[in-house]
Structures are given as C-alpha cells and as structure tokens.
C-alpha cells in the first residue's frame, strides 16, 4: 500500500462505491436497515418526513415544529409570546390572545406539548401546551398550526404539571408548582405551612364547540406539584400528579425540600370529582381569569373574563384523591400503554418505583393506609408498588414507552437513556446523551399505542457538540433508533429555545387536514376589505382607518395623503390571494410595532402613530412575486393643523 498511484485508484473506487451506496440508500431509505446511519435520517430533497415533532420552546414561549427523522425545522408556532415574525401579539387582531388578569402579558415559559387523544391515541386535532409563569393552557389547532385558545388558571403559580389530557381529552389537567395562599393574600412568607395551598385544576374540553372551560379545582396540601399524566384503559378515571417539598419548605428548597425519604404521587379520581361537582360539593371561589379565543372566520381574538371557579376540598369528597408514597422528590409520572403501571421518576432516588393500578385499587379496598394529610389518605408503599427498577442511572426523570413491552427513562445527572423491561424491571440497554437530558419523546410514547421507532432525547446542555456561538449555545435534540434490541444514535439537531418536552405524530395524520388558505368569502373580520373596489381611507376624529388590500403585486390604495401628526392610523390589510403559501407582509417606516404577516384570505391590523411630518413609505415584507419589490406605497404626513385633505389613490385612478 505504499504505492501512491494505487492509493489514488483505491480512493476513486471507494468514492464511486460510496456515492453509489448513498444513491441507492436514498432510493430505498424506507426499507434499508443497515450500518449506514446517514441513510436512516436522510430525507431526500422534496420528500417528506415520516413524523412531525412538536417541541416546546421553553422560555421562548412558543412551539417549534420539526420533521423526523431529518430534524428539519418547519415552523415556530406563536403561543404565549409575541412573535415579531408573524405579528402575533402585536397586531390588533391577535393582541387579545395574551390578555391575562394581570394585563397584557407578552411572554411565558412553555414546557409540555400534549396531543389531544381519542381512545388514548393522539388524534391530530390539537396540541396543548402550558404556560408556567403566568399560569395558562393553550390549545393549538393542527389544521392551521396556530394558537386557537388560551385559558388562564386562577389560584395557581408555576403551572408545571400541565397540560396532560385524559383518554378522550375529556379534561386537560393543570396544577401548582408553587403553592400560594388561596385566594391569594398578603401574608408573611414564613407562614407557609399555615397559609399556603396547592390546586389541581381540570379544564373541560367541550366535545361540540371544542372550547376549553375551567370545570373545577381541587385544593391540596401546600407541596410543589410537578408533573402529571392521566390514566388509560383500567385507570381511565384517574389522573396522577407528582409532588415534592412535602416538607413544606419556603426557603432554600435545594436542601430543605430534600429531607423526606418519600414524597407523593397524588392519584385523583376525576370521574368521582366530576360527580361531586354535580352533587354540589364544590364551593364557589371568586377568581379572576381570562379565556382568549381566536375566531378563524373573524380572524380576531376575543377575550372574556371569568370571575369565579368551583373548588373541591378533599375533606368533603371521600375517595377522590389518594397519596402514593414515592421516593424521593419525584419529577415525571408516566402511565404505561396498558394503563396498569404508573412510573415515577424520583430525581434524587436510586431506583425507579413503579406503582400498580391493580394493587392501588386493592390497597384502597383493604384500607392499607399509612395516615392522611388534610383528608387525603396515604397508602402503604409496599401495598401499591409493583416493582423497582434498580440501577436506573442518576437522576431519573421521565419515562416513555415503545408499545413493545419496554420503557425508556431519561437520567439527567448521568446523561443517558435507560431501557428497561416492564414486568421484570430489569435494565436491558442504555445509551449516553449529550448532555443532561430532561424529557424524552417516543412518537405516541405516552399513549395507548406508541409508534415505537425512535426515541428523541431533549437535552439541556450542548457545549462542544456544535460550533460555538458565544456564551449562549443551542439546546438540542438527539434522534435515537429503538427499532432493534440496542438503541442507536442517529442524529443531533439544534432546537429553538429549550425543548422541555416534545411529542411526535405520524405525518399522514396531520398532512391531510392542513389548511392551505382562508376563503375570502368566509372572512368576517369587521375591518375586512372584500375587494379592491372597496379599499378606502376613512377619518373619524383623530382615528384614520386604512382599508388596504394586497394582491400580487400591489396594495390598494398605494398613495395616501391627508394624514396628520397625532393621528392614530389603523392599517387594516386584507390579503385577497386565494393560493397556498402566498402571505403578504406589511410595514410602514417608523412603525413602533412588528410587521403584519397576512395569510391568504385574512385581514390583519396594525396601529401606527406618526409623530413627525414627511413622506412615509410602506411595502410588502414577504417576498411574494417577481414584482415584490414594486409592491409599495407612500403616506404623506402633514402637521396637525394642515389643510391637506384626506385622499387616496392607486394607479391613475383617484379613489376620492
């Protein structure tokens, strides 16, 4: 092999073979299971991914949508945070989506996307996500990939154990990470043990209107409630919530909330709770909270304020809630596809405890209790536990299931995924993650029938995995093949914001319902301009309404005069296009707001308050056509006392 010529020839031959392999791999990528990792994640240009992945954007307050197996980023869905890319939360039509009882709230921290389910399987209608900081739950419509509804949760702080759904999306759950005085009150913080309480909330999804309504809350002891999952199959009527800080610490929780050997999984019989509400056992508390709903025909968000909520006290409601002792500051709680096993990730524990629903029921029957707290019976650990997974890695957090009898648990401290067998509780495989995995996701992995082909690791730390980008480096996901006995790392890809949790669903379940444009005939926005003929400018005192239409490649009108310093100028822009993927954008010089991005058939409004005289150009911000650069106009702004008359025109046609 010392002959350089021979080497070159070998190189040529090898490159030939390599390209041929890639080529054939591309043609047959769906069938090939080989040592060639690249072919398993390569989605050829123009081809579609097999799954959609919806990952929370964490402190970006949004949801990011990716394809699997490629890891390509398709869209960022605006949810709890203003989004200058789309004008969400900036435009007059969408601002109301961010109304809360604390006023307009332009940001939040979104953690857990959760699909709506039918018969315990993701049905592709909606994805829900929680806001942690100012407690809210959002419903995103998966035909438009837009936020459809946001409901605020009163009597809550740190809405973390949320928004997990029951088997047929009867309810979406929420609960308090931070306990508080309920109703909130001006009390010494040191009076925590006396005054602070938690709540567990059940939001009802109306099966007809598909709107959310806060049905009832349950008052619970002042622990920190952390995560949740609803039961399924035999455990259909139940929902499970982890809690920590059963110590009731209000300072230095790092030490003070880690004293007890066991905290609790709270098991709530929501069917019975529903019954107790019907029987009038709930007390009505006054509580201010908003529900914001986006009407797809009006292209307009409408806020309504609610003033009361029904609250159940476990003392009045026997059998509604039990505590399952669980070591040690448990974090995730996950229910296996059969609905029998309830897995808790004790982040400081050395084992993963798995509770049995059958044993739980039997223990209630046989009254195997170990005291009670505030009317909530505590069951004996040995009476409910089915088994413990030994040596599960350090810091076990969350578990998802592959539907083939195996569970996959993320271990934060040891940065790995641990695969174990349900029933024998033995660890069968483990794979390192890079680094510090939080949640993990198997498509449908918290449902009755997972699509157990991949597990996605959602990592907190990525230092040294990507090109450095200063002190802030990206968070990331890792795609791992779980179709064989051994897990196999396929791909790293960066994410937008922190991907706390993510859920994935086969593409075919969503693609067929994806909306392409809004029908202009169905647009009922009060400021719609239905045709270019109706485009106009109207003055009402200091308010000027510009009814602008957009069509490739002009606005109508595009010359506007008679605007004065001090006016409130509302640009109501209607996109008259009726074709897929033709949004128009709008911005005017000096606009103290984001652009508008107007989908075909939509109307969107931005408010502009000119403060200085002069000529102000406006233009289309989203490249729309060959003559996009011609899609522009001018506004003349005159002094407040000017006699310039209001006028507007397009082309040679004076419109007034």
């Amino acid at each position: 092999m010392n002959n350089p010529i021979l080497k070159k020839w070998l190189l040529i031959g090898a490159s030939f073979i390599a390209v041929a392999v890639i080529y054939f791999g591309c043609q047959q990528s769906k069938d090939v299971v080989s040592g060639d990792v690249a072919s398993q994640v390569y989605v050829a240009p123009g081809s579609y991914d097999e799954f959609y992945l919806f990952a929370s954007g964490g402190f970006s307050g949004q949801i990011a949508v990716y394809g699997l197996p490629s890891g390509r980023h398709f869209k960022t869905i605006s949810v709890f945070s203003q989004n200058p890319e789309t004008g969400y939360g900036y435009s007059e039509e969408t601002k109301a989506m961010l109304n809360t009882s604390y006023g307009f709230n332009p940001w939040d921290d979104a953690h857990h996307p959760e699909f709506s389910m039918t018969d315990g399987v993701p049905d592709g209608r909606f994805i829900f996500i929680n806001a942690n900081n100012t407690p809210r739950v959002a419903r995103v419509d998966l035909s438009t990939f837009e936020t459809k509804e946001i409901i605020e949760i009163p009597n809550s702080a740190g809405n973390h154990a949320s928004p997990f759904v029951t088997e047929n999306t009867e309810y979406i759950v929420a609960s308090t990470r931070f306990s508080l005085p309920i109703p909130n009150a001006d009390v010494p913080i040191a009076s925590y043990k006396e005054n602070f309480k938690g709540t567990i909330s059940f939001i009802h999804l109306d099966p007809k209107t598909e709107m959310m309504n806060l049905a009832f809350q349950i008052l619970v002891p002042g622990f920190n409630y952390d995560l949740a999952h609803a039961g399924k199959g035999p455990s259909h009527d139940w929902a499970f919530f982890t809690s920590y800080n059963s110590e009731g610490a209000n300072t230095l929780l790092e030490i003070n909330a880690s004293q007890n050997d066991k905290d609790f999984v709270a098991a709530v019989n929501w069917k019975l709770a529903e019954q107790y509400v019907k029987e009038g056992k709930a007390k009505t508390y006054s509580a201010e909270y908003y529900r914001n709903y986006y009407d797809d025909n009006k292209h307009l968000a409408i806020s309504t304020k609610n003033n009361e909520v029904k609250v159940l006290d476990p003392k009045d409601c026997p059998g509604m809630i039990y505590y399952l002792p669980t070591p040690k500051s448990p974090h995730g709680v996950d229910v296996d596809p059969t609905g029998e096993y309830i897995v808790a990730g004790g982040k400081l524990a050395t084992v993963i405890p798995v509770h049995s629903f059958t044993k739980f029921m039997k223990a209630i029957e046989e009254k195997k209790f170990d005291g009670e707290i505030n009317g909530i019976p505590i069951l004996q650990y040995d009476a409910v536990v089915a088994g413990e997974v030994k040596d599960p890695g350090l810091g076990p957090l969350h578990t998802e299931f592959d539907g083939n009898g195996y569970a996959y648990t993320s271990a934060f401290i040891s940065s790995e995924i641990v695969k174990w067998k349900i029933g024998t509780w033995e660890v069968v495989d483990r794979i390192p993650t890079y680094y510090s995995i939080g949640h993990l996701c198997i498509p449908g992995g918290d449902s009755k029938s997972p699509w157990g082909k991949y597990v996605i690791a959602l990592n907190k730390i990525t230092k040294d995995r990507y090109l450095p980008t200063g002190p802030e480096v990206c968070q990331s996901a890792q795609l791992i093949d779980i179709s064989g006995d051994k897990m196999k790392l396929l791909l790293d890809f960066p994410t937008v914001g922190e991907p706390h949790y993510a859920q994935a669903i086969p593409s075919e379940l969503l693609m067929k319902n994806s909306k392409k444009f809004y029908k202009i005939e169905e647009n009922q926005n009060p400021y719609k301009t239905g045709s270019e003929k109706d485009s106009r400018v109207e003055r009402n005192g200091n308010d000027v309404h510009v009814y602008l239409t957009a069509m490739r490649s002009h606005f109508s009108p595009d010359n506007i005069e008679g605007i004065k310093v001090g006016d409130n100028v509302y640009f109501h822009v209607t996109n008259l296009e009726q074709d897929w993927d033709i949004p128009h954008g709008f911005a005017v010089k000096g606009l103290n707001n984001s652009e508008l991005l107007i989908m075909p058939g939509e109307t969107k409004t931005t408010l502009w308050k000119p403060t200085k005289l002069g000529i102000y150009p406006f233009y289309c911000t989203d490249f729309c056509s060959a003559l996009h650069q011609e899609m522009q106009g001018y506004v003349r702004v005159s002094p407040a006392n000017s006699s310039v008359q209001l006028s507007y025109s397009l082309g040679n046609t004076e419109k007034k």
Partner: protein
Amino acid sequence: MKKIIKSMSCISIALVFTFILSACGDSGNDESANFNKTKTVNTNPNGLTDFEMENGIGPVKQKLELGAIDPALVKKGEAIFVQKCASCHKLDQKYVGPAQRDVIKRRTPEYIINMMSNPEEMYKRHPEAKKLLAQYLTQMPNQNLNFEESRAILEYFREVGK
C-alpha cells in the same frame, strides 16, 4: 501519471453525478416527466394537442355546452370577479393584466376557464399564455376557483362582451 489520475478522478466524479442526475429523472412524477408523456400524443410543434392549443390546458378537456346567457349566473360571476380578479383586471383598461371586456371574443370559453383554473401550467406550456407573460411580466395568481366559480365568471364575460 499524476495528471492522468487526477483527470481520471474528475471523470469518475462527473460520471457518478451524471448517473445520479439521470437516475433521479426517473422518479416519474415531476413536471418534465409529465411533459414527456404528453408529448407522445402531441400533434403540433408546441407539444400540445390541437384541443389544448385552442382551448388551453386545464380541467376543461372538451367543448362546453353553454346555452343562453343566465342572468343569475352573470350576477354571481360579477361578484366573484370583483372580489378575486378586479385587483388586476379592468373591463376596458389595460391594467396589471389585460382588459377583459372582449376576452370572450379573443379566447374560447374553454380557454378562459382553463387559464383561470390552471395558470401555473398554462404559463409553463401554452404559447399564448407565454406570450402574455412576456407582455405583462406578472403571472396571474391562482385564485383557486372551482369549476362553478370559473363558469360563473365566464358567464359574466359573455354578458359584458355582448
């Protein structure tokens, strides 16, 4: 010798790429593939059938029975025209697109519907549509009219073109 090897490796890479390109052309569902298929039954140098030359390429594949002008349909067509077309078309004035009062005299009814329903393909393949694009420089957007809607607009054109 080194030079020869270098050029050999260039050739081998070129061959590989040619192979990939030609192989990828076999996917059977891209525009050019469709184009080639149609070509085999073509009867004129533009690659279109005689019917397509006269009546355009789109959902209408045979002559329509139009009957007398229906005033209700005219009204419906006018409303759709005003909402979805009038940003760019006036009746008597060349605008973003051509004046439309006499379109019914310039084109067959079938051509009008096919052009409204299938502008992308018309601009790519039909010599008349290509000529218009060269003249007006802006492509007519697809407004996703269904057959009933485009039929109503046609009725409006029949009325105004009388």
